[in-house]
């Protein structure tokens, strides 16, 4: 009697689960590679307006984001509820945008600069005054490709 063979009925052999980890790892790597971790914590609450004539944004690595909205609840004690601009991880003034664009440009390849887009993620209740200011600054910084971030939806 061999060591491995049971004496009695053989029945169905158990399916080998030895390759299960490999399969799972494959899936894991897929998700790890495709995952884009949110690199900024939002200090402003942004609900983008709805629109129908929207386009998908290409080349996410070439997009810089400008968030505009009123500060979130826990920040309102120190920053008030008036609409503010957020660049990267901090509140910013309108005057800081040119600098922000310059640093964003430095981080990219020179060839890619003309394709860089600035996405304006603004809350739908924000007044146009602040957005006009941002747009003027972007024009000064010669960052002319912009994208008004919107949700898909009808009114």
């Amino acid at each position: 009697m061999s060591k491995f063979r049971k004496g009695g009925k053989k029945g169905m052999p158990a399916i080998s689960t030895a390759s299960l980890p490999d399969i799972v790892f494959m899936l894991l790597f897929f998700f790890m590679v495709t995952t884009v971790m949110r690199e900024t914590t939002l200090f402003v609450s942004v609900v983008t307006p709805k629109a129908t004539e929207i386009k998908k944004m290409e080349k996410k690595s070439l997009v810089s984001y400008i968030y505009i909205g009123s500060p979130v609840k826990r920040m309102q004690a120190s920053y008030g509820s008036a609409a503010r601009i957020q660049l990267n991880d901090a509140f910013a003034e309108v005057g800081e945008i040119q600098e922000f664009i310059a640093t964003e440009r430095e981080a990219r390849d020179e060839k890619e600069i003309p394709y860089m887009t600035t996405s304006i993620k603004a809350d739908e209740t924000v007044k146009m005054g602040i957005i006009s200011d941002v747009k003027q600054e972007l024009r000064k910084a010669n960052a002319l490709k912009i994208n008004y971030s919107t949700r898909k939806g009808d009114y």
Partner: protein
Amino acid sequence: MASSRRGLPEINAGSMADIAFLLLIFFLVTTTMDVDTGIARKLPPMPEDEQIEDDSQIHAKNIYVVLINANNQLLVEGELMDISQLRGDAKDFIDNNGKDPNSSENPEKAIISLQNDRGTEYMTYIRVQNELAAAYNELRNKAALNKFGERYADLNKTQMKEIRKMYPQKISEAEPKNIGGDS
């Protein structure tokens, strides 16, 4: 001794799958597959100091003036208008081709001038932008269907260019003014 000859016992890899699953689930949950969408626009370059804007060459009838005030009301070509009517009216204007002597001569010459107040709500502004873009897209789609029998989005690059030449999207935004209310 029997045990020393066997060497180290093999590490049980049975729980490997569980660990991998745990990580997998973590990444599944944190992944955001949402694609950013939005309305793409190109800002005009900053005017040079000496350069004076020369509007005289553009006939006044070729300009479709859209004003939005601080109360989110629309004044289109001097008349109060609801946003829901804007798309149709803009289409009529662009695709006039000289039928109405007070409207645009042809789509290539038609310019939409958009001006908003500092107190205008962003949502209204985007809605107006959206309606104007929709007007152009509908016209382009119609032209594409007539000419190539396909929707504008399905055309190839050269065909798209041709349609774009027929209906160039000219939306000009004036420098912002502060007329009514705060910003």
